[in-house]
């Protein structure tokens, strides 16, 4: 339970197996994923209402337009989410520990006394 898994870490292996995620892949996945999820929800709900509940499907374009708007929004939202999560955006100030050098008070040059 408290095994330290550091022994498995290897610089050669980490360098030889780069992570395969790229912004182009993320974009493609987000567009097709959003279309797939919305198509599933739209046609699934339509099928339940039509074949199980035997209810008339609402007239007009409202449901279809809402589904299309939601599809576009979710594709954009999930892409920007993934890009942020995968550290593709930002300077990393929230998670990178950059080394800085500071001078301690006794190392600072003292102001010259007047007179």
């Amino acid at each position, binding site marked *: 339970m408290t095994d330290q898994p550091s022994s498995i870490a290897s610089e050669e292996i980490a360098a030889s197996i780069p992570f395969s995620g790229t912004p182009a892949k993320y974009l493609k996945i987000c567009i097709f994923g959003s279309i797939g999820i919305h198509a599933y929800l739209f046609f699934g709900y339509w099928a339940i209402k039509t074949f199980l509940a035997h209810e008339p499907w609402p007239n007009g374009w409202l449901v279809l337009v809402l589904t299309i708007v939601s599809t576009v929004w979710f594709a954009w939202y999930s892409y920007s989410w993934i890009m942020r*999560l995968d550290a593709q955006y930002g300077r990393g100030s929230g998670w990178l520990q950059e080394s800085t050098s500071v001078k301690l008070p006794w190392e600072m040059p003292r102001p010259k006394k007047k007179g």
Partner: protein
Amino acid sequence: MLESIRMFLSEYYMQLKFIHLTAVMVWVWSTSVAYAFYLVPVFKAWRRNPTDMEIVRFRNWIMERFDEGASYEHISFPIVMITGPLLFWAGGFNAHVGWLMLKLLIVAGIFIPIEVTDYYLAHFGGAKHRFRKAGDAVGYERAVQRHWWFLLLSSPAIMVSAMSVLYLAITKPF
């Protein structure tokens, strides 16, 4: 027989709902702090510095702790999956209830596939500790990266669909 069980359950509908909602809360939120404040910052650091051994070691440690930390989530999910259909049955719901049908579509088409994958990655064939114990360093690295792919792709869908399901269940808008 079935009708008498349904009558019995409907008498305890609110108690059943209490168990269901408690399990939902554990399922949704139990890993959130570990995910947002421990796992994600370390994985971001790794993505910026993929060959820094100190970060890779820390990433591996965090990943295995997260695998184990997902246990609360993975104990509560079956409770949600059992009490949900019981509530449906005991409450006498049917396909006319629009908000519930949409909620069930999200559960069946999004939550269940994601959770099945998550069980596999955290506890079964994709669990990182299995590769470590087998001394398979290449398999270990691939398993960690596979899990990162899963987290990247599933988290936006989970965030939006979990909030949608909570909204539908609480407000019952149609």
